């Protein structure tokens, strides 16, 4: 029982990170058809933002905010420099562009900061545990679940109730039409990138708080999982991305907890193989995005 509850917390916390990354990918994909390989570098940059501001002596809370801001700035900068020129290009060109951007940024991180992990130390009280009855829970995983839920709720509110949110949902359906209606598409796209950057920044905060270090590949690997999550959920579907993210997090934690020791090295392989098997059963994903093509 205790194990089950603890693992549930772990699964939700990891799944939440994947869900936020996948949601960021899906927001951008649904509007500009970009599968952003460089999304991981946005997260990594957020992590370095935290690291550097701690080095320069900012208090921890300020450092977190600076980390979030760094991720948002990075996302916007990417959009402005690399992707805006490519607006309307086909999916493959966009994907390859972001792939190149991602590789370049990783090298810059390696040379500009360090190829090795750099430590991030938060106050000890942040990484403690607390007791509910007889069961011990970690503070960080619990807080990260709350933060994830708050972020998802906030984003849902934004998309459903505010003008820019509605503009974004409209852009996901048909950005040309939106332009004809006199809404500035560049603004909508920029807001989408900013949101995806913010989500990646939150993911960076949670990730660094749990692992205590940043390295050039920090964002890359979770984002690989998030890619798979977006496809599992149904590429371009926002709800699907969140669902896919949680699903992968849960499967991963289950695999970690219950796979026999001999299979431990194959954990990632098994998780991904399970996901691909799920795609055989539903090639369009768990919650497919609406199709708008006409014959």
């Amino acid at each position: 029982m205790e194990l089950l509850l603890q693992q549930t917390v772990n699964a939700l916390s990891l799944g939440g990170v994947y869900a936020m990354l996948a949601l960021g990918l899906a927001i951008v994909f649904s509007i500009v058809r970009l599968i952003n390989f460089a999304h991981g570098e946005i997260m990594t940059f957020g992590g370095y933002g935290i690291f550097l501001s701690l080095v320069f002596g900012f208090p921890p809370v300020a450092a977190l905010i600076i980390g979030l801001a760094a991720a948002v700035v990075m996302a916007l900068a990417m959009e402005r420099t690399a992707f805006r020129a490519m607006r309307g290009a086909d999916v493959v060109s966009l994907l390859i562009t972001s792939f190149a951007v991602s590789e370049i940024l990783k090298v810059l991180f390696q040379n500009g900061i360090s190829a090795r992990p750099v430590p991030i130390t938060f106050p000890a009280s942040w990484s403690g545990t607390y007791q509910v009855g007889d069961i011990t829970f970690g503070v960080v995983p619990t807080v990260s679940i709350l933060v994830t839920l708050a972020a998802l709720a906030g984003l849902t509110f934004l998309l459903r109730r505010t003008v820019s949110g509605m503009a974004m949902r409209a852009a996901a359906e048909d950005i040309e039409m939106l332009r004809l209606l006199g809404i500035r598409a560049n603004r909508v796209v920029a807001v989408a990138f900013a949101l995806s950057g913010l989500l990646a920044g939150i993911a960076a905060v949670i990730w660094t708080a749990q692992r205590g270090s940043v390295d050039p590949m920090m964002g890359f690997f979770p984002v690989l999982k998030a890619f798979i999550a977006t496809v599992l959920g149904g590429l371009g579907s926002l709800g699907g991305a969140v669902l896919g993210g949680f699903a992968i997090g849960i499967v991963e934690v289950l695999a970690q907890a219950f796979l026999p020791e001999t299979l431990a090295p194959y954990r990632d392989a098994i998780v991904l193989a399970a996901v691909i098997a799920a795609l055989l059963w539903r090639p369009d994903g768990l919650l497919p995005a609406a199709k708008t093509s006409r014959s």
Partner: protein
Amino acid sequence: MISTASALPLETHPARLAAANWVRTAICILLLAAVVACLTLAFGRTGERIAVQLCVNVTAVVALGLFCGNTGIVSFGHGAFMALGAYLSGILTMPAGLQRTALPNLPDFLAAHELSVWLALPIVAIAGLCFAAVTGSAIARLAGASATIATLGLLIITHGIAVGAREITRGSQTFFGVPRVTDLTIALGAALVFIVIARLYRESRHGLFARAARDDPDAASALGISPRRTRFVSWCLSGALATVAGALYGHMLGAFSPASFYLSLVFAHVAMMIVGGMASVGGAVAGVMVVTLLQDTVRQFEGGAELLGFVFPEFFGLTTIALGLAILLVIWLRPQGLVGSFELGPGADAPFLRRIGRGTKPANDPEKVAETMLQARSLSKSFAGVRAVDDVSFDVPTGRITGLIGPNGAGKSTLVNLLTHQYDADAGKALINGTELTKVRREAVAGKGVSRSFQNLRLFRGLTGYENVLVGSLAAGRSRQLAAPVAIRELGDLDLGEVAGKTADALPYGARKRLEIARSLSQDPSILLLDEPAAGMNPAETDDLADRLVRTSEARGLGILLIDHDLKFVNRLSNWIVVMNRGEVIAQGLPEDIRTNPSVIEAYIGRGRTAAEAQFVPNKTTRVLTVGVDQ
């Protein structure tokens, strides 16, 4: 619209195309041979080393491009095949003594074979093919970006397994003792063989089908081509080749680890493919050259260098940055890559091929088709609560042109999509001679004798006019020898002789419309569904098309379902008219009865007008009507 002069005879087109294709292959080969010769002659041992590396890269990228170029899906998963090839070939060829120390726990069935590389490579190729068949059965189900991400998943999975399976691969440690047998002869030989295989595949039946499905999956499946199958076939061949390329790479390196086949290798290969141009074999070859030379140049500066008085610091990863920038520049400035979207070399219309006189006689007109009846029975389909098609029943027999008219949004195109199983019907069925089309696979509809055109043009953009029709003809199940004369016949019948060698994208609008009809007719259908064939044509073109349709339908006895909202056009051609409005059939009958039917007039021009206004009007008014109907 009609190009002047120099129209080459249509009959010689297939022979000219075949010759042009061989010339294109020869150009790829000569290009590679020339660069290799330059490198070895000019730079001696260093040049030879670079040449070997270049040739191995050509094998890998040609294998990668065979999948990506023909299906349009970028794969990040080919590193998995290369790893499989390198490790398997390494284990099979390794000296037994060395193997006992390096891999003490190797399973018995793999141990102590000491094969020569010539025996190992076929085994490796077969293993690669099996691995590709297993992975392809999953990946081929996905299309576009989802498939790309799945290939990335494959790469991660394989990497995880390679790191985990210590007894076979030494885990993440270096795997050593692989005989370094990839010399220039083997590498160059393999590269040339790979180029020829990829070129042959690209122009083969399966290659054409794959490229057709890449350009337009819906149109391809309406012709009876299964896009998933074309992806699967391309994946399997490409995977088997990539596995062999991996083996050669392993035998070049001599020692490697799972990281050697991970993201940086994949990134380099994808960069080569994109820089050269993904759509062609020539692009793969050119891309490898440019990028390999770029890499080798930049690598010298990675450890720091002094140039023109400036001292550059050590900068690890400079080659990666150079590759990244090369990709970005190419994509921004020349999205189709340096070579562009077509194969390097001449097309079938090149002047020096003019002398080829071997003609392909157009096939005779097909026999009159057997009597067939396409029936819609209570077909219904809703989209999010809107009943687009509501309980529609009518017949389309052979030997008759059945007109289907109705205002915009009446559900006409949805109906065609239901008849051809492009959509799943909510209720009701479509039958051809009693067989339920609504129950067969979408790709099987064409085989039942139903062919269609699309409202918005759906040609295969990357193929020439001739190839577009040839794909239709091949998809009808004919051999190459039988398919070509039929394609020539249809192109001739629709007066498309001049555009046979041009890409579909470059044709004028009217020719594109006719090309789509030629493509459908090349399948010898019993029933032809034409979704607004005259839309966007000028009056002269419309008249011309009408004449041709009447002639074809009489000569071949086929049944046509003609969908349009140009009343005059439909009236002129049809012997029977079905009228739809708001998803329902509101009338059907002989044209003269329909003209005077009050509910038809109401649907088209509203209450209180006369039939005369709806009918015997010059073209100008028809257009006004159509505009009115849009509201």
